Each structure stands twice: as C-alpha cells, then as structure tokens.
C-alpha cells in the first residue's frame, strides 16, 4: 500500500505561530496504527509541542527503530527528514546524525521492546554519552507489531493473550536513565496532554540527553484480562480461534489529574494503572533522591509521572569533544584537507 501525506488544506481558521505555520504543518501522513492506540496520542502531543515551540519543522530530524511506535515518525512532522532504522539500534544512528550536524534538533522515538529488550545496550550508552536529543519511549509493555509478546518492561507475573506468563524482572527505563547520567528524565502517560505536551517542550529545549518514558496503552494486545463480565461474542471468538482475528478500535484513553495526586487509570482491558503525579514542590535537581523516590513508589505499586530529574546546565557530547560550531556536513576541503605541503613534510618524517 502506498500512503500519500494527506493534503494540507490551509484552513484560514487555523491559528498560526510566529513562523506562519499552523499545527497542520507539523502533522504527517495518516496514521496506520490501530484506532485508539496510545502512540497516536503521543504523535499528537509531539505535533503540539513543536507548534508551541515554533520550531521550523525541517530543522528537526526524527529517528526511530522498528515497531508500531517506531512507525509513528511517519505520522508527524511531515516536513522533517526521518529515519526508520533497524530494531533496537536507533540510539547509535541518532548519535552519528547528531555528530554530523549539531544545529538540528534530534527527536528519537522508540518502543519498550525496541529500547528495553534488544536495545537496552544502545539505550544505556547513548544516555551516558549525553547526546543532545529528546528520546521518547512509547511504552506499552508489549511487542505490538509482532503481535503481543512481552517486552522487558512488562510486569513480572503478567499474562499475555496467549496465556504465557512473564517471569523476568521488569526494567524501569527511568531508573536506568537516572543511573546512566541522563540529564533530563521524565515519565508521562499518552493520554495526559496537559502533562505530556509541556514535558516534550521542555525536553526539546534541554541541551543534553533528555529521556521521556511515556506509558502508551496498546489497544490490540493489552486486553487479556477477564475484564468483560458479560458474554462478549468478539472476545470469545478471538479466544476460540486463539489469535487476534477481530480488533475493534477504541477511544484513546485520556486522563487529567492534579500534581501530587494519584490517579487510577483504567486501560482498554479494564486493568488499572496507579499513576502518581509528582507534587509541585518535588526537587527536580537531586538525582539520588529521585532514584530512591522512584524505587519506593514502585515498591508501593505506584508509577511516578512527571519530571523526575533535570540538570539545568547539561554538557552534551559536542561539548565533551570540543567540536567546532560549524556543522561537520558544511566543512569543505579548505577546512578538512591538510594539503600537499603537509603531506611532503610528513613523508620526510617517514624516511
């Protein structure tokens, strides 16, 4: 199937930002994800954040791995270059891109399988290098694109649609990022625009390694719980043929809750998430405290959301390497080639 970007009719009504762009100019091709997929909500939040920040779309480079989540860069920022790389290795591609041109804004989009399973190694190293980027994991706790296997962020003890039980410790990417030296670490929920959009804006402005773990319910494969008390033809049908034959689109799940409070979020399958939004007086500058807090709440069965830690003066990879301000891809022979004279001198020293 070939998908053309949807025509961008410039609604006179639509508000424009100072660059003269409407929100439409930050959108991409029509999404081919399941109706109600949390990932689409995140794409929408990215569109909004970029619009609000008045970023020139073409100055953003969007990179991803492989997965439903990694497909999303096609569905936002149509005027930006995008790179759908290989599974679990987006961080290295983004690092290289960042080195080649320090002037663009780098947005990495990945999934929990892409980043926590196959990709945990590159995830760890891109964080410790302090690459200037916004790295978003669209975390649904499953492998969506390959039909519902566990990812490394799936809860221990969880049961998949196929009845398989997960016995491995769940990886909390937030804890990892904090330990590995990321300078901006946050968590949010796909349906919480009020919280997510500002976080993405802040991450995009952060001049270092910014990581957002965004919980994003999967319509198709998170619905294994016996949530429907009444007899449901569709569920029974799917169970009987023992594969996902009918997937009915759902409403995206949205939440709104105040800072410092805990919200119970019902997922499509009826399962509950206990989201705790950080209080306003939470100290975002203490890395160790953040880790402890995170662990304690986790032990209490709560998922902390909000900005957990930020270093106001991050140093990025270019800073460490003390590179020239001109993007490498603009340097010419004069700047790069030592020339024949230097070569003759070198030859002489090799005799």
């Amino acid at each position, binding site marked *: *199937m*070939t*998908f053309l970007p949807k025509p961008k009719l410039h609604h006179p009504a639509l508000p424009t930002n100072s660059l003269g762009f409407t929100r439409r100019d930050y959108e991409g091709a029509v999404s081919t994800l399941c109706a109600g997929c949390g990932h689409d909500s995140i794409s929408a939040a990215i569109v909004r954040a970029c619009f609000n920040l008045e970023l020139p*779309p*073409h100055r953003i*480079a969007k*990179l991803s791995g492989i997965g439903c989540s990694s497909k999303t*860069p*096609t569905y936002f920022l*149509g*005027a*930006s*270059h*995008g*790179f759908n*790389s*290989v599974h679990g*290795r987006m*961080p*290295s*591609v983004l*690092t*290289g*891109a*960042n*080195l*080649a*041109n320090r*002037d*663009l804004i780098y947005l990495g989009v990945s999934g929990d399988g892409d980043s926590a399973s196959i990709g945990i*190694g*590159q995830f*760890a*190293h891109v964080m410790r*290098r302090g690459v200037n980027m916004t790295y978003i994991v669209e975390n649904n706790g499953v492998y969506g694109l390959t039909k519902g296997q566990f990812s490394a962020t799936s809860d221990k003890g969880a049961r998949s649609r196929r009845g398989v039980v997960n016995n491995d410790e769940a990886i909390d990417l937030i804890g990892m990022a904090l330990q590995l030296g990321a300078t901006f670490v946050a968590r949010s929920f796909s349906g919480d625009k009020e919280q997510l959009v500002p976080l993405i804006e802040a991450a995009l402005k952060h001049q270092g390694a910014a990581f957002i773990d965004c919980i994003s319910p999967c319509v198709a494969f998170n619905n294994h719980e016996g949530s429907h008390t009444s007899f449901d033809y569709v569920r029974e049908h799917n169970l009987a043929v023992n594969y996902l034959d009918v997937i009915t689109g759902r409403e995206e799940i949205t939440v709104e809750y105040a800072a410092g409070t805990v919200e119970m979020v019902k997922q499509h399958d009826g399962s509950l998430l206990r989201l705790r939004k950080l209080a306003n007086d939470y100290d975002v500058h203490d890395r160790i405290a953040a880790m402890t807090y995170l662990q304690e709440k986790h032990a209490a069965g709560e998922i902390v959301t909000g900005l957990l830690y930020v270093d106001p003066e991050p140093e990025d*990879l*270019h800073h460490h*390497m*003390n*590179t*020239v*301000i001109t993007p*490498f*891809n603009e*340097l*010419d*022979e004069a*700047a*790069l*080639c*030592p*020339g*024949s004279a*230097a*070569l*003759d001198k*070198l*030859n002489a020293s*090799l*005799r």
Partner: protein
Amino acid sequence: MLQSTERVTGLQRVNDFVVKFANVNGSGSASANTLFAKSILRMGVPITPRNIFPSNIQGLPTWYEVRVSEAGHLGARGGGVDLMVAMNPQTWTQDIASIEPGGYLFYDSTKPMPPSKFRDDIVVIGVPLTEITNKAYTESRQRQLFKNIVYLGVLSALLQMDVAEIEKLLGEQFRGRDKLVAANVQALHMGRDYALKNLDCPIGLTLRRASAVGDRIFIEGNAAAALGAVYGGATVCAWYPITPSSSLAEAFTRYCNRYRVDPQTKKAKFAIVQAEDELASIGMVIGAAWNGARAFTATSGPGISLMQEFVGLAYFAEIPAVIFDVQRSGPSTGMPTRTQQTDILSCAYASHGDTKHVLLFPEDPYECFEFGALSFDLADRLQTPIFVMLDLEIGMNERLTKPFTWDDSRRMDRGKVMTAEELDAGKDFGRYMDVDGDGIPYRTYPGTHPTRGAFFTRGTSKDRRARYSEEGSDYAENMLRLLKKFETAKQLVPRPIARQAKQPTRLGAIYFGSTSPAMNEAEEILAERGIHLDLLRVRGFPFHNDVKSFITEHDQLFVVEQNRDAQLRTLLVNELEIDPAKLTRVLHFDGTPITARFISDAIADKVDSLKIVPFRKAVP
C-alpha cells in the same frame, strides 16, 4: 669468540638475507628491533620487517623478522632464517630449528648452552648480554630495557652496520630526552665494543651502503589508511577496538589532533567515538553519513559479522559508509594476531537478502592512503557502503612504500546531493528515482529546505519517492535499479593492473592486496623455471571489464589468495560468469603471510599436474 659444535662455514651474503629476532612480549625489544630495521634503510638498503606476535600483552614469545633485500623484494621470503637472534629461552628449540643450513645463531651466552642444544650445521655466536647489562645497570627495569640496545650494538658490528645511522635514529626517536639518548648510545657501544673486541666481525652476512631505497617512505598500512581518511575529509569516526584494526582508529586520532584542530579556537573539526560495540559503531557511521558528514569505521572479521544487518540497511537506504576491514584469521574470534584475506565473501555479499557491495583492495600503505581517501568519494558518489580490505600483514607492519602525493586542486566528490537552490528552482525530487539512468538517485541532507526535499528513510517497503509501499512492483523496480547502480560502480572502482610476462604466455595469475610483493617475486622465480605468467592485480569489486577480458585472453589462470575457500575466485566465477575450470586455486591460509616460495612452488606443481589432468578437474 665464535663458538660452534663443528667447523661450519657460514653463509656469505651481502644485502640479501633474513634476520629474525625471538623476544618476549613487552620486554622492550620492539623499539630496538625497529632501530635495527630503520638504520639499514638509512644505509639505502630496502628491508621489510614483520611482527609475529601473540594475542597477549606480556610474557609470551614474539618474533620480529627482517628481510634485507637490495633487489627490493618486500614479500616474506619463506624458508629458514639466515641469522637468528634468539633472546627467548621459551622458544629456543623451534628457533634453532628454523635456521637455514649455514645460518647464524646469536644468543645470550651468560649461561653457555651445551653443544647438544645447537645444530652442527649452523654458526653459533654467543655474547653474555645479561652479564654485560647486569654489570652496567643496577635497576632491573633498566637492565631489561638496555639489554635490547646492547644486542643491537653487537649486531651493528657483526653485520657491519653504519653505527652513526643508529645513533642518529636514537637522537630522533628520543628527541628532547637527552638523558635517554645518551644512555641508549652508551648501551649501544657497550655491545658494539664487546663484539669488535671478542668476535671476529663481520660475519658472512654483511650490509653495504646502497641507493636502492630512493625516496620511499616507511609506514604501516593502518596509519596510511587513517591519513587517507583525513585527506578524504572524514569528520566522524566511530569504532570499537579490535586487533588488528585498532591502530587505524588510533592513528586517525593522532593525525586529527595534528591536522584538524582549529588553530584559533582550538576546536576539533572531527569527532571520534569509541562505541560500545560494532553494531553501534556502524550505526553511528550510518547516522552521520545520512546527515551529510563523511564517516567511517575500522574493524576486523568479528565486527564485520556484527555489522551485517546495518550494512544491509545502508545498501537499501543508500547511505554512504566507509568500512576499513583489517582482516585477521577467522572465523569466530579467530587468531587475532594472524593475517588472512578471509572476509571477501562476507563483505561482498554482506547482510541477508540480495545485496552486493563495493570492495577496494589496497596492496600496500601507498594504496591504503590512496584508497582511504578515494573511498569517501566513492561512497558519496554511489551512496552505498564501501569496504576497504586491508589485512594484518599490510595494516600492522611498517612497509617501504612510495611517498604519498596529493593534488591540492582536488575536490571532494559529494555525489548527487540536491541543494535548497535546486529545490527552490523547482527541480523534481524523488529520493529513489533513477533520473540519470546510472541507477544513482539524488538525496538531500536533513534540514536543507523548509518545505521541499524532506523524505523518510526506510530499509525497504517504499516507492521511488520514499513513500511507504509494500507493492511487489515497487520492490522489484528498486532492486533492479540497485543492480544498475552496481553496474555503474564497475567504472568507478580502481582498475586492475596487468603486468605482461617477458614472453607471450597463455597462463595468467590473478591476485590482490598483501599478496603483491610475494607474487611479483614468485613471477620472477617461475620465469627462471621457464614458467611465464601474465599478472593481473585486482584492486576493486565489482570487477572492471578488464578483469573479464584478461581471463578470456588466457587459457588457464591461477587465483592466488590467502584464505581456504578461494573467496575471490568465487566472486570471479559468480559475477563474471567464468567457467571455474579455467581458474586454479592457489591458497595459503595458515595465518602467516604468503611467500614467494609458496606461490612459485604451488604454481609449478599445478602446471605439471595440469598437463596430465583434464582441465575440468584441475582443482585441488
């Protein structure tokens, strides 16, 4: 005194012999041995040194073999050694065994060896090195260090070396460290004086000043390739340490610090990342190249294996990437410190699926530099990965080679990159369209234009405008265009170099890379034996048409390779549609560099056997 179990008249040779040093890893012999080699060069006599070292840091045996050849043969000669400098008791027996009849043995006679420990057909020279150094130095580490210089002094007398050259070299090596220079010179003469006093110098192997070196330079292939990358405009190097390729990335670092730091701002016009592994290093290279920088990685076999998926992506997404593969013995972790030409297939057809990649085969440091720079033009022009195939033999040994040259008017060929101006001018952009009929599409750098020329990069599942597509026709069209692009590459890779035999012949030999010097020497040996060979040195893949015609013009060809499975021959047969019966394998694959003697013997044998066996079966 010359000690010997029997009266033996030693070999008599001038400027044409092989000296081998048997040492212990990490004992400080390396720089003494290099001094030995370089000072002979300074006398105008060509030499080729080879390190034979273990995969270990300290304490294991290591050898340094120096071939002296005024005639200019730079390949390993093969056969025994003419003078063995046996400084390692661990390997005594095998070292003794490896001496040519009539050859010389030089050892530390502080505790003299019983006659039983020698051979009766060699000349034994004993010098109490330990005794000498222990007398002169108190600190154990100094004793260890200067012992090497002492034996160098002895050799200078035995072989009639110009000691002034050695002193000059010491001065250069330790420039600014006068204390060190003085100490070394002193140790040097300690040994030299001992020899002149106690041994009848010179022995039958002597050096005589000549002018056979010319303006050639002396450098390792890895360093040369790194320099090529600097001149080629590489700005991003992402690598992961692995023997024998590490010194390439490390040399790039040194040269960048020398040539690429902005004099005013002191800022770097390069970025070198030691990645966490090879999947990451190739990923970074691809990301950087996608974004318009010239980027490369250096690795060896295991890294090539780990890069397969990403290389497939680069092939399909059409991203310029340069990969220096310094080959070692494989497969698996292989023998890291042994040489081979054994990644040809895994590079040429790297990745699952239908792929073909461009390979370059430098023969020496000069071509390492040349191809090192060229590879970046090719990568940009062809928008595909380029493999520069070195091996440990070229990469990690200093080699006499033509001086590097550079044309200052030369410009980087960035290939087909559409600019903002062209896009504004309304030029139609479709990332994977074959506009020019050469199979090469246009690309844009990210961030080029506010509204035009942006595209989404994918492995596949795309149409000519880079839109998502699973259509079979789109897929097949793209695959065929990639074949056309590969066809175009034939004209761009370095042409093969042919060398005619002194008399017309129907026999030919095809070879590549580090086999060069041994092949050239073998050709002379064979000619003397009445076997005449036209030579063709392949320098790139896909093969230039000249390769096909060379094969068609000969009845029988020998394909000389340093691997077990005749990997280049596979490419020749498969890509040029050659009848395999025409191509006879000559394979050397024990991890040591191929020698002239091996090649000439192998070919001579096969020529005989070919006479009796029908061609169709003429394969080992």
